[in-house]
């Protein structure tokens, strides 16, 4: 187990390096920041000065070398927009997004496993139809639409929740609810499908035919077997929370990393893009390692290899 984690982490370093190279060059292909940071009527001299000072006049490989060298010293460079170290900017924004994800994902899992399983138990039943219907609405509604309608309904009309911002726990209700929407919708579908497969598989049928144990035991056995695809999709959804967070943070004015990333691309703040991608990538790798371990725990036939 220990050696598995070690090996897996080493492999992740490979992914990280691929990712970093990708981000570095892709980001720079989007064009020079000089025009965005200087007034449109800035003189040629001023523009040259700007590029010279920030090293944008150097060939790309020199810039990359400098970036990589800095990286080895845990220096991700200065943020152009904030003129502060990029790591600092990113680490300040990350906890908000992490908290959003940490509240959202457990709720999503709980809600979707319970709903999906119950739906699978009696396919075609009233509960199944209802759960499918609602979850599909959840999976197919644009989250910014829900977010804005949420503000208009709960904050403006009913006045039970604040419109936006952070501060009290009530401020988190709408963002988390919006963020839960799609993952829950998708996972209910996935849980339902794989539970149905598991429940109809041979050994469960045999167990049921033999009259072994209660309904609950059968259920737990099926759940254990049906969990593999659920874990896969759930990990994807967890990684994708950053995407949802972009929208949620934009609408609700949350100071998270999702909005920071997008703003940084718009402003060609390369250092922040790189730092932000690195930090989220680390989080995603940790999720993936946990997922791989969970696979093995759920299905003993899968060995660490």
């Amino acid at each position, binding site marked *: 187990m220990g050696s598995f984690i070690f090996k897996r982490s080493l492999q992740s370093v490979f992914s990280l390096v691929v990712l970093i190279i990708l981000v570095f060059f892709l980001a720079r292909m989007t064009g020079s920041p000089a025009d965005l940071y200087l007034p449109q009527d800035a003189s040629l001299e001023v523009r040259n000065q700007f590029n010279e000072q920030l090293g944008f006049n150097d060939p790309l490989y020199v810039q990359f070398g400098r970036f990589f060298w800095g990286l080895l010293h845990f220096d991700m460079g200065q943020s152009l927009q904030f003129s502060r170290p990029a790591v600092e900017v990113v680490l300040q924004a990350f906890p908000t997004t992490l908290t959003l994800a940490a509240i959202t994902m457990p709720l999503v899992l709980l809600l979707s496993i319970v709903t999906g399983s119950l739906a699978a138990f009696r396919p075609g039943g009233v509960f199944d139809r209802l759960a499918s219907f609602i979850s599909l609405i959840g999976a*197919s509604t644009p989250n910014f639409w829900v977010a804005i309608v949420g503000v208009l309904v709960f904050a403006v009309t009913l006045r039970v929740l604040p419109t936006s911002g952070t501060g009290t726990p009530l401020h988190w209700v709408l963002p988390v609810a919006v963020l839960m929407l799609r993952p829950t919708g998708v996972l209910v579908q996935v849980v339902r499908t794989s539970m149905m*497969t598991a429940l109809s598989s041979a050994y469960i049928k045999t167990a049921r035919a033999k009259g072994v144990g209660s309904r609950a035991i059968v259920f737990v056995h099926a759940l254990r077997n049906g969990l*593999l695809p659920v874990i896969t999709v759930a990990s994807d959804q967890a990684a994708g929370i950053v995407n949802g967070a*972009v929208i949620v943070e934009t609408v609700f004015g949350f100071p998270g990393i999702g909005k920071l*990333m997008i703003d940084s691309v718009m402003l060609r703040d390369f250092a922040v893009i790189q730092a932000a991608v690195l930090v*989220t990538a680390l989080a995603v790798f940790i999720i993936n390692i946990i997922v791989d371990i969970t696979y093995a725990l759920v299905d003993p036939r899968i060995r660490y290899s």
Partner: protein
Amino acid sequence: MPLSIRVSGTAEMNAPVSLTLQTSATSSGFRDAIGLLWRDKLATLSAILLLIVLVCVLLGPWLLADKARAVNLMARNAPPFSIDKGWMFFLGADALGRSLLARIIVASQNTMVIATSAVCLSLVLGGLFGLIAGYKGGWVSALLLRLADAIMSFPSMLLAVIVLFVFDPGITNVIFVLAISRIPIFLRTVRAEVLEIKERMFVTAARAMGARTDRILLRHIAPMVLPTVINLAALEIAFVMLVESGLSFLGIGIQPPEVTWGLMVADGRNYLGSAWWLAFWPGVAIMLVTMALNLLSNWLRVVTDPVERWRLQTTVSRHD
């Protein structure tokens, strides 16, 4: 004993049935499928809806492109459910007084082309890599998985923004970006399933009998994975439409005069307080297509599984 035979038989029976559904080669198989579809009213409804969408995709822009583009500032935000301005305005008009109905129909082409091509592309690539990664194991698997990790850990929204800034936000580029960012989920799903299936009796048996790897993968394992993948793909189509909409919300993604449902929702969100119908109808379109695809894929999963199919044929009447 009979039970286990049936389960292993699934793999063999699976391919022909789904094949008939797709190609409708033999008329008896086709009639059979229609008959089965008719038994599930919701699936029938879904199929009809998707057919309508298909017609819109094929004919919409050809018939209605001019109507969808005709600006009439006098009819700005005209409310729905009124036919004073003609049936084209039954769903109301947008901020430029263009018929929402016409625009939704015309937009169906871009929307569906983007969503289905992106999902098909990632399904084929991700599925193939997943089969290999799951079956082979070893360094091949590790390499594929870590590459998938690299893509997966690059937030797809961010990837899309960067790529669309580098290349222009045309339809092809949007398709490519979305397809690439969705490969990992197919890869991982397929791999996870393969890991489990390859330990099953019939695969071990096939292997013991000396069947070739590609044959085992494509003939025995792939059909077993297919139902899950199709279900996933149905959900992914919704996801792709939503990401595309999210990009429009951020002001990137497809740019006017091109139009997609996602773009319409994103533009309409500015008027949620005053003219809800602008964002509502295209949103409903996305929702209906998602629902139809999922109901149909669920139905497909049921009918292609002989056990389920038997149950469906005997019990479905009770549910309706």
